[in-house]
């Protein structure tokens, strides 16, 4: 006697087996379930079928995989009348080992390498062993080069200049296709280093300071310049030229190209010119002239006309400045009455490495520093140091860098100021702009000067051509010239007649201010801060290379250009660079320049790719199709489950409980039926966003209609059966009756509807995606068709047909499954076919 549980289990197992037998016997069911399983398998194992991600992009590299709107590879072999095209090309990496271009001589065997140029040219030598790992820049951080660089050196001793010397690095490769590529793309990296010559000249610089008025009210402030420098800076003149702008008589109206030219051409300068002499001087704050103070490290200022107030710290008695003498009356000047003399002294010892010193004035009063960006000089002659102030309080001063020497008590602390107040209480009316023209002289070639315009929020500095240069400007004076600059030309084309492509001069302009950096790809001189952590002399002329993306020097997608270079025949082609050393001038010097070439790469993107070709971005379509399976199945099944669930609950409740609940639910049902579903759906998706979860919920909420009605009618007919009445008589509650007695009767209906409502969901999602409401992170079949339209590629049948067919196949499979289930589970259909 088996226990009840195990006999029940046995019964269920047998029932299931019977169902499976009937299921497999039906052809439709087998077909349907096989197709569905096939797609489920593809969906789950998608990464196995394609190495690209769901948008068809290579996750490691990104970017296009081949030409845009490429055809599938097999199309080349297709007969023409069916749409085949024998003139398709594929991707070709012309240079198989990008990176270290080893010359032909040094390797035995395969001639895969470049031509050794040093054989022919007397002054040029090739040093392949000089494996220089030069640094390159990725987002502000420096990395060592991955591959080595081949060093090509031009060297000659003092004597005559040798003119132009060219060497060629190139490689021959085979192009086997009879069609042009969609795009070619080549790049390389260069470093240039060589002997150079520095020149220094006095620099006169003009700037226009523009201060924009505020929107709401006038602004009042001090126009102050801050220079952090330990060298000589001489402000020659300054004037307020606002009137000039206001009256619109700018120099451009008079045909001048820049303010400088205009100023040189006018006799009387507008505005109020002040001769300011501001030099950075050493020692005590004495009234020194420009000549005396040239080259000194400390700053002070004086005003020799006495008109314009200033800010500074100096020895009162040495400057005749009316304002200063009446310090208490004049609100312009910061009150320095607290300083009875500028000499303060340390009240505590300060050791090496301290960053705080404690000071008081000679009279014993506590000292407050006025200018945070000031410098102080501590100590007597041997231990004197110049320190920059970082912050201050009453009686103490914090330094930016630790002290280098030990200082005793009572050593003097002298304040030096390095800011210049050009105008105090300058009023800038609202919504108008004020312009001040300033001229600077730089006396010390090795210094660094920064001009910060402070005091106004909207102040900016413009150069003499009125181009914006910043709110903080660096004036620099050192010029460097390479003895032998380099010109690089890229050439490629068919082996007998290659065409020259891009030519770049390194460095562009041949003069590198401050000897810093220039862009390797364009030769443009980059004016930037010196690199920290880099030895100054080793790579002072350095290239900027970016490894974060594929940077091309030669690149074209223009069909005419590409066709001109490739023609329509398979054949031999070359790609290479020509490096020309321009040795003209500097003949009295020993000149040498080294060019490091690295990472030569040349790639051709074909017009065909993969099994299904590419979309308009060059992304693989087959991958998109494969991953689209996931989305479609996910959405179809989720929506179906959700809407069936809701429909079931509503139908059961309405059918069984009847009365008010029934009326209410059915009227609600009618309402949903009457609203136009597709426009409503579009409106809701447009508003709520097209994420997949939103879509599932919306489709589920709009789709329970039909099923609820059917369930309700079924329940209505079951409700009247005697066994329900018997159950009620036995005392069963509503829940029990619904769950144990009614539900099993509607289950067959439920299973069938689960299967048949999936296609509707999939097709609606496809329609919405096609209209443009898709989740941007996911690629579905409907979205693929949308992209067809967007790319204007309706002629590419290999793109149009597969997604639609897949949708139809999956939908049909589910419907077949549903019909088959219906056949098996619905007893009424078993009678007399």
């Amino acid at each position, binding site marked *: 006697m088996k226990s009840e549980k195990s006999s029940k289990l046995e019964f269920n197992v047998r029932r299931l087996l019977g169902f499976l037998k009937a299921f497999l016997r039906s052809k439709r069911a087998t077909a349907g379930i096989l197709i569905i399983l096939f797609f489920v398998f593809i969906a789950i194992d998608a990464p196995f079928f394609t190495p690209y991600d769901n948008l068809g992009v290579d996750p490691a590299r990104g970017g296009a995989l081949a030409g845009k709107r490429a055809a599938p590879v097999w199309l080349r072999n297709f007969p023409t009348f069916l749409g085949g095209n024998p003139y398709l090309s594929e991707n070709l990496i012309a240079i198989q080992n990008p990176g270290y271009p080893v010359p032909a001589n040094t390797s035995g065997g395969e001639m895969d390498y470049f031509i050794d140029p040093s054989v022919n040219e007397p002054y040029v030598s090739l040093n392949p062993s000089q494996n220089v790992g030069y640094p390159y820049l990725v987002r502000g951080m420096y990395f060592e080069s991955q591959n080595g660089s081949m060093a090509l050196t031009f060297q000659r001793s003092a004597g005559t200049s040798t003119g132009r010397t060219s060497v060629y690095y190139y490689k021959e490769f085979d192009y086997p296709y009879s069609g042009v590529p969609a795009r070619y793309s080549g790049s390389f990296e260069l470093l240039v280093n060589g002997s150079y010559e520095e020149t220094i000249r006095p620099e006169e610089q003009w700037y226009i300071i523009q201060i924009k008025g505020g929107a709401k009210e006038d602004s009042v402030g001090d126009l102050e310049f801050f220079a952090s420098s330990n060298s000589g800076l001489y402000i020659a003149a300054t004037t307020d030229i606002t009137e000039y702008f206001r009256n619109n008589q700018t120099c451009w109206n008079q045909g001048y190209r820049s303010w400088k030219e205009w100023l040189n051409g006018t006799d009387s300068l507008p505005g109020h010119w002040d001769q300011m002499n501001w030099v950075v001087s050493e020692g005590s704050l004495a009234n020194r002239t420009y000549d005396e103070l040239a080259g000194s490290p400390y700053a002070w200022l004086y005003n020799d006309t006495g008109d314009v107030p200033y800010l500074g710290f100096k020895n009162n008695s040495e400057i005749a400045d009316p304002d200063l003498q009446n310090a208490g009356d004049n609100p312009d000047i910061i009150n320095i009455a607290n300083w009875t003399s500028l000499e303060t002294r340390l009240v505590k010892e300060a050791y090496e490495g301290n960053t705080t010193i404690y000071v008081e004035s000679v009279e014993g009063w506590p000292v407050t520093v006025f200018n945070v960006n000031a410098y102080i000089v501590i100590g007597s002659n041997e231990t004197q140091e110049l320190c920059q102030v970082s912050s201050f309080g009453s009686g103490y001063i914090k330094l930016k860098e630790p002290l280098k020497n030990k200082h005793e008590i009572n050593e003097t602390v002298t304040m030096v100021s390095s800011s210049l107040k050009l105008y105090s209480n300058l009023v800038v009316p609202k919504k108008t702009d004020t312009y001040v023209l300033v001229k600077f002289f730089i006396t010390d070639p090795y210094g660094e000067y920064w001009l910060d315009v402070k005091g106004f929020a909207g102040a900016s500095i413009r150069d003499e051509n009125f181009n914006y240069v910043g709110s903080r400007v660096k004036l620099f004076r050192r010029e460097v010239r390479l003895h032998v600059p380099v010109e690089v030309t890229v050439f490629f084309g068919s082996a007998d007649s290659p065409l020259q492509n891009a030519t770049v001069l390194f460095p562009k302009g041949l003069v590198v201010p401050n000897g810093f950096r220039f862009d390797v790809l364009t030769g443009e001189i980059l004016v930037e801060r010196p690199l920290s952590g880099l030895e100054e002399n080793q790579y002072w002329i350095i290239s900027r290379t970016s490894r974060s993306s594929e940077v091309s020097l030669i690149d074209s997608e223009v069909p005419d250009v590409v066709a001109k270079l490739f023609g329509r025949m398979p054949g031999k082609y070359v790609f290479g660079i020509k490096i020309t050393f321009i040795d003209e001038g500097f003949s009295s010097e020993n000149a040498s320049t080294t060019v490091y070439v690295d990472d030569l790469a040349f790639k051709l993107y074909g017009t065909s790719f993969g099994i299904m070709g590419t979309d308009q971005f060059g992304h693989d379509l087959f991958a998109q199709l494969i991953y689209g399976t996931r989305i479609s199945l996910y959405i179809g099944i989720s929506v179906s489950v959700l809407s069936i669930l809701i429909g079931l609950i509503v139908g059961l409740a309405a059918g069984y409980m009847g009365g008010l609940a029934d009326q209410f639910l059915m009227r609600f049902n009618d309402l949903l039926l009457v609203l136009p579903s*597709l426009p409503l759906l579009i409106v809701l998706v*447009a508003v709520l966003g097209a994420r997949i979860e939103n879509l599932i919920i919306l489709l589920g909420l709009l789709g329970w209609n039909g099923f609820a009605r059917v369930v309700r009618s079924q329940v209505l007919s079951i409700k009247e059966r005697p066994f329900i009445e018997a159950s009620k008589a036995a005392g069963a509650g509503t829940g029990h009756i619904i769950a144990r007695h009614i539900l099993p009767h509607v289950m067959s209906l439920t299973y069938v509807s689960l299967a048949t409502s999936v296609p509707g969901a999939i097709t609606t999602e496809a329609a919405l995606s096609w209209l443009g409401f898709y989740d941007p992170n996911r690629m579905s079949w409907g979205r693929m068709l949308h992209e067809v339209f967007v790319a204007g590629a309706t002629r590419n049948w290999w793109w149009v047909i597969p997604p*639609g067919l897949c949708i139809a196949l999956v939908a049909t499979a589910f419907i077949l499954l549903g019909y088959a289930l219906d056949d098996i589970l619905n007893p009424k259909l078993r009678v007399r076919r």
Partner: protein
Amino acid sequence: MGLRSFIAKRVVYSVILIIAVICINFVLFMVMPGDPTDFLLQGYSRESPEQRQAREKLLRDLWGIGDPWHVQLIKYMRNLFTWNFGIEIIGRRPIAEVMARKIPYTLLVLGTSTVLSIVIGVLLGIEVIKRRGSLFDTGSVVVSLILSSLPTFWIGLVLLWVFSQYLGWFPGAHAFPTEWAGGKWPVPVVTTPAYSVNALTYNIQISISESWKLVWGYISHLILPLATLTIFSFGGWLLLTRASMLDVITEDYIVTARAKGLSETTVLYRHALKNAALPIVTSAALSFGFILSGAIITETVFSYPGIGGWIWDAINFRDYTVLMAIFYVISICVIVANIIADILYGVLDPRIRYE
């Protein structure tokens, strides 16, 4: 109960339904974020805040956007019942007039395709029943299934490609040849609403002897959208006919009719079809009700100037006066169709009206 009281009940119920739908429409568009004033004010980005506020206030007064909701609701209901749909927000054309000119196109395409697909579906369905169990039966069922699960735009795309671009037999866009519009057909551009640039009427100069040109002009542009929709829908009718005929074929009176010696055609059409017609007729009535709402995709593929394209533009530009008007009209159509379907159901099947 009787037919009359049945009809009366349905009509009363439908009126209540219409009012409920109107309210829902209203709530839906009130609640939606995104204001057409945002779009209209786009071009004025350089003005000062005061100017912008003044302009917004003007727009709101004009469109009543800022009124309290009950005021808007009353105005809305009154307008709808008097068919005063107002003006498009973006294109500024009177909505009723535009609708009057766009509905004929939609009716042309969808009405014809519905009729065609019903006729084809039913006739084919009966043929299938004649040969039930054969390969034709299974084959047509499978084909209908596949065709009705293909997305409409895909069918449209394929037809477009084959017949318009590859073979060049039929034009692929618009309702009539471009020459009639002076050769300058305004191409819809993404950033501006297309319909604001279209003229509503064109003057065409054609002589009487060439009036076939007029007819052929319209027809040639109609064929591809018609084909798309018919291909997509006839499968459903075929399957429906087949299913309901199957129910009827096994009844006893069919056996009697055959035994009496009637021809198969008479049996099928006179006896079986009449009884099986009920679900087909009611579905037909319902699908006529959905004509106006069902064309968005096809009209977008073929740039056909009907209601569907208009809905699409209105959604893109948040032109909700247009949307409210269209939804209202669609709802009325559907409700009326429902009433007719129920009446037909009652007329054809006497058992129903006595429940």
